[in-house]
């Protein structure tokens, strides 16, 4: 059997991260926003780590997909979005739900499939939804939700509400037809929508460049729809925040959609069943060195934030995750009756009215 990178992706040349753009420390972002993002980064990180621990304890049944390492993207957008904006996410959607303010306990309980979950244990890890927070669902068949975001954007445009729809998706989504349908529709109708590709370099278990015609799966397609290619450092919350602010303002001004490719890396595998062994070791370790959290910690210290303030945030988040976990574990399992509710508008699932 051949032993080159075409057969074993772990033997390929590693794709290494770019260095941190240190000039971003001087970006015009106020300290409160930055501290808020610091807290959010920790919430997403500690939530995902706890979710992983709960898998290992066999408390989370079924599969789940974590955003460990990728938290800066949801964080940056969450900080830049208006409360009434729409979010559409994928099966890897815990971070996006929490970044819109979904209650951490209800989110954790949903992962555990409990009655006190945000969806009563009906949605689980892959479908987190909270309409009250503008979190309009996590869509586990990729691509479709980009079209759905367009429709929500159309309605916002028609109602002149000023809302923007933001659709998050992975690099793999750029190769499915609905991605291209959605980009074209958004462009021809100049919709207030922002498409955010989280390029973590792997489509499930396969390097994205192996299965994609262009080097940058999203930015490389932008020109086909008359859009500017936007590439941002997805491991820097400030970079993401600035890109989000620009795209959201453009959408709200009636200047149409944006397509942003935020380059990042999954710390772990595709799902909980995947140790991610198809990746070159040097690549994994290099990206571990570009973890957004220690970098942001250093940046905030450099901007004069006292260490004590940052560690207080970390402790506060740790307590919140513990509280959320206890809340989730205390929830009841849904009864059999819940299977048959909420299929039709009459509340049930009867074959007939």
């Amino acid at each position: 059997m051949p032993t080159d990178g075409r057969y074993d992706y772990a033997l390929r040349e590693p794709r290494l991260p770019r260095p941190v753009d240190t000039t971003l420390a001087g970006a015009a972002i106020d300290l409160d926003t930055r501290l808020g993002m610091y807290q959010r980064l920790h919430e997403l990180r500690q939530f995902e780590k706890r979710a992983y621990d709960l898998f290992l304890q066999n408390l989370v049944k079924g599969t789940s997909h974590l955003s460990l390492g990728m938290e800066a993207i949801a964080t940056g957008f969450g900080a830049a979005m208006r409360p009434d904006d729409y979010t559409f996410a994928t099966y890897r959607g815990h971070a996006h739900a929490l970044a819109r303010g979904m209650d951490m306990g209800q989110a954790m309980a949903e992962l555990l499939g409990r009655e006190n979950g945000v969806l009563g244990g009906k949605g689980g890890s892959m479908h987190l939804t909270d309409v009250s927070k503008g979190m309009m669902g996590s869509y586990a068949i990729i691509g479709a939700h980009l079209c759905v975001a367009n429709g929500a954007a159309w309605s916002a445009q028609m109602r002149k509400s000023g809302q923007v729809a933001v659709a998050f998706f992975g690099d793999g989504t750029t190769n499915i037809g609905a991605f291209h349908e959605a980009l074209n529709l958004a462009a021809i109708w100049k919709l207030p929508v922002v498409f955010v590709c989280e390029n973590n370099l792997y489509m499930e278990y396969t390097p994205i460049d192996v299965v994609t015609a262009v080097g940058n799966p999203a930015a490389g397609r932008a020109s086909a729809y008359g859009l500017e290619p936007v590439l941002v450092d997805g491991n820097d919350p400030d970079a993401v925040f600035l890109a989000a602010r620009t795209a959201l303002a453009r959408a709200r001004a009636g200047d149409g959609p944006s397509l942003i490719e935020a380059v990042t890396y999954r710390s772990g595998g595709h799902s909980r069943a995947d140790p991610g062994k198809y990746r070159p070791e040097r690549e994994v370790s290099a990206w571990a060195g570009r973890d957004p959290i220690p970098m942001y910690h250093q940046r905030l210290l450099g901007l004069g934030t006292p260490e004590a303030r940052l560690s207080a945030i970390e402790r506060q988040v740790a307590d919140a995750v513990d509280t959320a976990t206890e809340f989730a574990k205390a929830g009841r399992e849904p009864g059999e009756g819940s299977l048959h509710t909420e299929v039709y508008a009459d509340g049930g699932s009867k074959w007939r009215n």
Partner: protein
Amino acid sequence: MTVRNIAQAINDALDLALAKDSDVVVMGEDVGRTGGVFRVTDGLRDRYGADRVIDSPVAESGIVGVGFGMAVGGLKPVLELQFMGFSYPAYDQVVNHVARIRNRSRHRFSAPLVIRIPYGGGIGAAEHHSESMEAIYTHVPGLKVVVPATPYDAKGMLLAAIEDPDPVIFLEPIRLYRAVKEEVPEGWLTQPLGEARVEREGEDVTLITWGAMTKETREAAVLLEENGISAEVIDLRSLVPLDIETLTESVQRTGRAVIVHEAPRTGGFGAEVAALLQENCLFDLAAPIRRVTGWDTVFPLKRSEHHYLPGAARIAAAATQVMEV
């Protein structure tokens, strides 16, 4: 009252809905300037503008996905997919998302949109333009699936579908668009979904059908009458929800049932009807339930259509066999 055909009745319903509710939008390929491939939306863009009668690209996943998103944002989209075969690229949106979002979100939101799909044979265009695959929609929890066969029902059921809080697959029999005319009342009227229509009363055998096959089934009833067999003809109109009570009552009375559809036989909706009837009234049956259907093959080109589609003679023959048991 105005005499209208089915296409005109649907146009009238869309006109009324667009006029009544500014949240209603119509979207699909060519529905604007051209009025749709079957001219069903003729003139609507002139009256309601290009932002409410929207020409989309040929991108069915996009059409249904956008419609779903519009519904999320409070609009009431009525989407047109030009032919049954063109609906398959949107099947992911329909099955994975539109049909399930109410359940997945625990009622917090839903996708109350109407997807109009012209379907069925008789226009000589083969395969994708002629198929009758209603069963791929009836199988999906969360959807309603209806098939009007008269101008009155087309208008009343479309307005009921637009009012309905659940997503509705609205199937329009292409070969009846301009083949059936009747007086249809002016103004808003709704025909509730889930009620079968007894097209013709009879005593000896119940012929159950829907959509375009109502025509051949009615003709079969006339043939049977000439041979002294009194056939009751029931047009289901609504497959989901299904009016099983009307069917059961009729079959309990006649003791015999023949189900007619132009879709392929295996896994067709006729099998579901037969299963429900045997659950409800097996011991009232004097003979096994029979199905007269399209064949388990690809819908053919024009010269072979008459071999594929059940005709009055095939239906009458099956009913006669049932009577001989």
